[in-house]
């Protein structure tokens, strides 16, 4: 029984964290039909930015809740700058090309950004542990959980609710939904599709960086964290149905629980359980759990 509770709590924590990282990817795909392979790099840059900013701040200040504000600030700044840069410099020129070519262009961005990060931050792992130790720990079913992990979970839920609210309750959201459903028709109705694209990509980049910034305190920030995360977030997004935001939430939860179950019941399976779940889901639901409707070309 206690194992079951541990799996549930672990899975929920991990799932929420995955959602936080994956939601930007699915949003960008839904609106722009871009599978952003460099999403993991935006995440990693968010983590590095937060680690650097926290390092500067805590060199001269005592530990305090200001850390959280610094993390959010660093993430938004990094996401805004990079998102704008990539959209204007590269992705805009690939408008109208097939999805796979665009995905490969973002793969090229991944290679470039990997080395740019190496130039800026080097190969030594950076630590940003301050916020992690700030909030103490609690025990559930005999297992110790750091409260910071619950904070990340809360943040993921907050982000999810915010996106839901924007998409369904605001004019911006309605325009976005219109572009998701039919780009040409939306443009014909006077929606500035290009502006929507820029805004979406920047939002996706900010979400990735936010995910990274709040992950930074839990891990050593080192080269390779982006490549590690990106395939897992793909799995989450594909399981949920690409472009679907509720799908990303369900996919993240499924993957989180599957991974937690593997860790507690059969640890060697941890490295591939995510992909096994993905292959399993796709066997029965070829387009994921919440697929977007597609027109069949004849």
């Amino acid at each position, binding site marked *: 029984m206690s194992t079951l509770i541990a799996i549930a709590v672990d899975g929920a924590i991990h799932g929420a964290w995955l959602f936080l990282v994956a939601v930007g990817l699915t949003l960008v795909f839904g609106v722009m039909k871009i599978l952003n392979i460099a999403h993991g790099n935006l995440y990693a840059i968010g983590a590095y930015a937060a680690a650097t900013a926290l390092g500067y701040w805590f060199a001269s200040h005592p530990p305090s809740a200001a850390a959280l504000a610094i993390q959010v600030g660093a993430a938004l700044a990094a996401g805004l700058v990079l998102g704008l840069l990539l959209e204007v410099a590269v992705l805009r020129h*690939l408008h109208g090309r097939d999805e796979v070519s665009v995905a*490969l262009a973002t793969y090229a961005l991944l290679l*470039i950004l990997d080395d740019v990060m190496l130039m800026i931050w080097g190969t030594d792992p950076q630590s940003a542990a301050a916020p992690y130790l700030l909030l103490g720990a609690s025990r559930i079913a005999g297992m110790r959980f750091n409260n910071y992990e619950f904070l990340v979970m809360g943040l993921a839920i907050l982000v999810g609710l915010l996106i839901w609210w924007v998409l369904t309750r605001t004019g911006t959201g309605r325009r976005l939904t219109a572009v998701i459903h039919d780009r040409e028709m939306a443009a014909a109705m006077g929606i500035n599709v290009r502006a929507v694209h820029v805004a979406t990509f920047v939002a996706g980049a900010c979400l990735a960086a936010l995910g990274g910034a709040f992950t930074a305190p839990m891990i050593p920030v080192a080269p390779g964290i982006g490549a590690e995360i990106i395939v897992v977030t793909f799995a989450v997004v594909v399981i949920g149905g690409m472009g679907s935001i509720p799908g990303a939430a369900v996919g993240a939860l499924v993957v989180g629980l599957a991974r937690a179950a593997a860790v507690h019941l059969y640890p060697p399976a941890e490295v591939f359980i995510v992909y096994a779940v993905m292959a399993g889901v796709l066997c029965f639901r070829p387009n994921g759990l919440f697929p977007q409707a597609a027109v069949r070309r004849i």
Partner: protein
Amino acid sequence: MFRRADLRLAAAGAVLLAATSLMPGWLLVLAATALAKGIVALGLLLLMRAGLVPFGQAMFYCLGGYAAGLGSLWLGIRDVLLLLLLAGLAAGAAGWVVGLLIRRYRGIFFAMLSMAFSMILYGVLLKSQDLGSSDGFSVPRPTLLGLTMTGTPALRILFAVTVLLTVLLAWGVSAYLRTAMGQIGPAIRQNEVRVSYLGYEPDRLIHREYAASGLLAGVAGALVAMLVGQVDPGMGFWMTSGEFVFIAILAGTGGIWGSLGAAFILEAVHAIAFDVAPTYWRLILGGTLLVMILRFPAGLSSLAPRRVRRA
């Protein structure tokens, strides 16, 4: 049966074979690796013509490498040709099985699902202590028809085997592409529904081509494993697949020359970038890829002078 293009292929092979004795060891390894990756690219060419980009081809490459290694360690097979056959069959069979599922998918989903399978293999190998986990294991030097090989002469012989095999496989692929079956690939890319109206089954064709591309990648993996004398799970990581896709994009879907040429270019860029800026070679690679996608969407083979062909 034989056309001028085939003669050109044979001539290129003969030149490489003749140059074997002049090439130093490092160049032999470099050129043989390039040819092996060219073989992988030939397999990708089959799928890319149908508009499919597998982002998990490293799975078969890795599988082939491990099959060759285990074949000689566990089964005691030492002969190069037998090991290559074993690796090709193992990877081809794996391609057939995975193909049963993957043949239903197109576009991004095809790419992602093939990547998922390759990551499963990567994860399993990473956790298999009998197979050396993340370090892999070393592959003993094979023999050729009972002859033992050592040192640089061994590299020469392996290189010669690679050249012959590449020529043979490239000829096979180009002959296949000229058949009616081979022409359906581009038709699938353009309009799959109409292809099925014509009485062909796109799924079955893709399945067969996927298995064939697996076989090719497996042979290439075995070649590299024997050449380098080492296999590790990194051969199956998705970044390796990315490199193959890079070759395929660089090559375009024009034909075998693009694929083989692109593999050579990649290895050369690799070698030069490693020499000039060892830590930043991905920057160069990524920049090249980006320029290719933005400026030359049809790949290298689109740069070659084109004659108008009538059907």
